[in-house]
């Protein structure tokens, strides 16, 4: 029998970006908030100090800050005809664990969706006809860009995002992204300066009539104090963001922007090494009574709460919904059910660019240090006759040059031996990559459910992922990577190696930690798991945050939008839900 703990107003399951956003907002509104985090507390001076942070082996390849699959993994297969097998080692994506979650080891790439991304299905069908979306289970979002804009702005101000606006309240701004939706305010800090590689990209793209702009960055171009009084330092370009913590307090993370503030709140508690096993409900199933969690000693506790919010990583939120029996699991055979439906990823292409006569010094970098074009993203270009919808941003990006990962050699050079060694020596300082960061659209056979065979360490069925790239997305990647290669050739490169994403999806090679869908939001219980306020259609005091809310993944990094949605959810709880506790905020 689980030990019962004192009741709180709100229990948060997981304490990364969205957990910290909800904690700050709801504590400030006077609610008592408890965050349950499955792993340890982590902080800059203890866990990623500048004296030992720049360690590629330990953090990247030995997964020092990532979820440990020994204790928590999932099973994977490409299609329903295969047996799913455990992901026995991390590869394609790198979820976090512990306080701050993956918000510690992200790159700090902060994007907003296009206005059309919020109405993806109806927009594309209106412009290209219904056949354009055939085979894709796209859905419109129940919120518009205009509704979300104030919350995007809050996240930018929390992070101190560095960038150049392209559209301020409808007025186009020189040097910014001309395709972006209107912003109510400029970026809080100026854009990062460009190193040589991104500068060459910028010049080449501009010469071709494209529209390069500095990538919006959570790696700060100058010192910044956010509205909560949290101070961030100026980025030093050490080149260890992605897969690493920032020892310099220069990268926006829950630890640098929110958590120190939250921990001063008397109505907040953080309980670590406490993994939630299940959301508990009243006998009629309509109301969550709290959660059962297990501590590191193996003791189970029941934590009662008036509001339960699933604020873990997308994969864990979906898993927790399924093992708690909330909502109807999606069945690809019938198309019925929505929990686990529309699992999407990110369709990543790239181009390696080599120079014989230019020293790029790519070890000087930052997680979002890039010149980028949005000309081929979303519906920023005419897709008539192309045979696909969606797109990608193309970035001349130098996050750093960690040599185990980033010794690039031209196409045709072997992977080892003297020829490789000579090419490695010649090109390490003279090569860079262009990122082709593509959309990922849903198809009926891509989904998440519970594995029939493999159990996790607590005896629950593991999450099972069934995924492969839809033909639409592979065509998109080929087209956009071809465009990127054209830019590369205009950079004065001596050789160019285009690498569009090819199927089948392979879980072993790192692509990106952008897993989305499975708890999507929508207009009604007939099309989704939660409403526009991230409130469960089935259990009115249960909220779900994160990229699981996305019915599909546009060609942008997900954190900006999922953070904005978390602010919207917090606002709805503060201003609407507390006045109508236990009630749906949207009529079913």
């Amino acid at each position, binding site marked *: 029998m689980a030990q019962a703990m004192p009741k709180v107003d709100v229990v948060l399951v997981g304490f990364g970006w969205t957990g910290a956003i909800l904690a700050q907002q709801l504590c400030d509104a006077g609610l008592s908030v408890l965050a349950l985090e499955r792993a340890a507390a*982590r902080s800059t001076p203890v*866990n990623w100090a500048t*004296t030992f942070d720049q*360690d590629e082996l330990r953090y990247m390849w030995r997964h020092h800050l990532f979820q440990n699959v020994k*204790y928590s993994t999932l099973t994977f297969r490409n299609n329903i005809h295969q047996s799913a097998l455990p992901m026995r080692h991390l590869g394609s994506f790198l979820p976090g664990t512990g306080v701050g979650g993956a918000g510690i080891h992200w790159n700090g790439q902060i994007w907003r969706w296009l206005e059309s991304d919020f109405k993806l299905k109806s927009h594309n069908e209106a412009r290209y006809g219904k056949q354009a979306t055939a085979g894709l289970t796209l859905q419109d979002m129940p919120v518009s860009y205009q509704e979300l804009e104030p919350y995007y702005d809050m996240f930018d101000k929390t992070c101190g995002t560095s960038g150049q606006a392209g559209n301020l309240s409808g007025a186009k701004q020189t040097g910014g992204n001309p395709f972006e939706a209107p912003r109510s305010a400029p970026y809080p800090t100026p854009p990062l300066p460009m190193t040589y590689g991104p500068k060459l990209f910028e010049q080449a793209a501009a010469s071709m009539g494209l529209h390069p702009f500095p990538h919006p960055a959570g790696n700060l171009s100058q010192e910044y104090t956010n509205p909560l009084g949290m101070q961030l330092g100026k980025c030093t370009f*050490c080149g260890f963001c992605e897969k690493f913590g920032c020892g310099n307090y220069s990268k926006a993370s829950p630890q640098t922007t929110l958590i120190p503030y939250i921990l001063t709140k008397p109505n907040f508690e953080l309980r670590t090494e406490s993994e939630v096993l299940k959301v508990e409900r009243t006998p009629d199933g309509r109301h969550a009574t709290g959660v059962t969690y297990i501590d590191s000693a193996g003791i189970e506790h029941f934590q009662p709460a008036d509001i339960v919010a699933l604020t873990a990583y997308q994969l864990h939120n979906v898993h927790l919904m399924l093992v708690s029996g909330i909502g109807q699991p999606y069945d690809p055979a019938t198309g019925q059910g929505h929990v686990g439906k529309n699992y999407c990823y990110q369709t990543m292409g790239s181009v390696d660019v080599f120079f014989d006569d230019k020293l790029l010094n790519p070890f000087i970098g930052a997680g979002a240090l890039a010149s980028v074009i949005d000309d081929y993203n979303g519906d920023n270009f005419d897709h008539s006759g192309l045979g696909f919808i969606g797109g990608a941003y193309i970035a001349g990006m130098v996050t750093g040059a960690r*040599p185990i990962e980033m010794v690039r050699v031209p196409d045709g050079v072997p*992977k080892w031996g003297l020829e490789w060694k000579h090419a490695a020596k010649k090109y390490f300082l003279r090569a860079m990559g262009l990122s082709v960061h593509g959309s990922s659209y849903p198809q009926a056979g891509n989904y998440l459910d519970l594995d029939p065979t493999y159990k996790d360490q607590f005896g629950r069925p593991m999450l099972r992922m069934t995924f492969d790239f839809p033909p639409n997305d592979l065509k998109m990647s080929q087209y956009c990577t071809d465009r990127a290669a054209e830019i590369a050739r205009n950079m004065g490169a001596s050789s160019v190696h285009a690498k569009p994403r090819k199927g089948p999806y392979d879980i072993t090679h790192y692509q990106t930690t952008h897993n989305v869908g499975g708890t999507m939001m929508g207009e009604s219980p007939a099309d989704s798991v939660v409403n526009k306020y991230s409130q469960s259609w089935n259990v009115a005091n249960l909220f779900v945050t994160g990229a699981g809310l996305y019915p599909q993944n546009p060609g942008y990094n997900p954190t900006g939008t999922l953070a904005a949605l978390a602010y919207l959810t917090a606002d709805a709880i503060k201003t609407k839900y507390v006045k109508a506790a236990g009630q749906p905020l949207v009529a079913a």
Partner: protein
Amino acid sequence: MLALSAAVSGAAAAEALSGHDGLLGGPSETLTNTLPWRDGLADAPEAASAGNWRYLNGAEVGFLTAAVDRLIPADPTGPSASEAGVVVFLDRQLAGDYGNGAHFYLQGPWQKGDTTQGYQSRFTPAQFYRHAISAIGQAVGKSDNGKVFKDLSADRQDALLKQMETGDLKLDGPITSKAFFTMFLQNVLEGYFSDPIYGGNKGGAAWAMIGFPGAHYDYSEWVTAYNQRIPVPMVGLRGRLAWSRS
């Protein structure tokens, strides 16, 4: 004030709180009105130990020394893999957390799987190396008149490594030569290019070869220094390599 739900102190606390990477064993703590920082617990890396082999036996050292020096051969541009200490690196890695599968899920049932599903062995990396090197030794003994890999010509060694890379070298037992080669080449690159504290990249020589200045914290003044050599001295986690004994 800090409130620990479990009373811990001193060395026990330090050990328990080192569960930073998701390993179980840290206490469940309740934190309120405090920052999660403790004196003396900086999570600094552990350097590879000096001295004798920790995991590899003599036959394995012989195979690996020969094989790594075909993957990264000696020549005037930079050290060979073994000159850079890669075999020591592999030994220490296989003897430690990596070799023990601390970040691998190894529970059953075990099935062969598709290549897109990745590693499906029951073995830890240390066991995987042991089985694979033994099976390679048997295969080479059959194909090369009882000889061992390290005594073959460089050309013959290269030919065998290419067969492993493609999986054409057939091995008895559950491990394919391709699966071994994939892990092996990755680990060799790790040893060659990781910080010298882990036993490879001795003296930073592999970094010097490619022009990587190491674990620098601040390049601010060089961001817009386009197309020129950046005159910073190489540093590692022990500090400036020219000052370090390694």
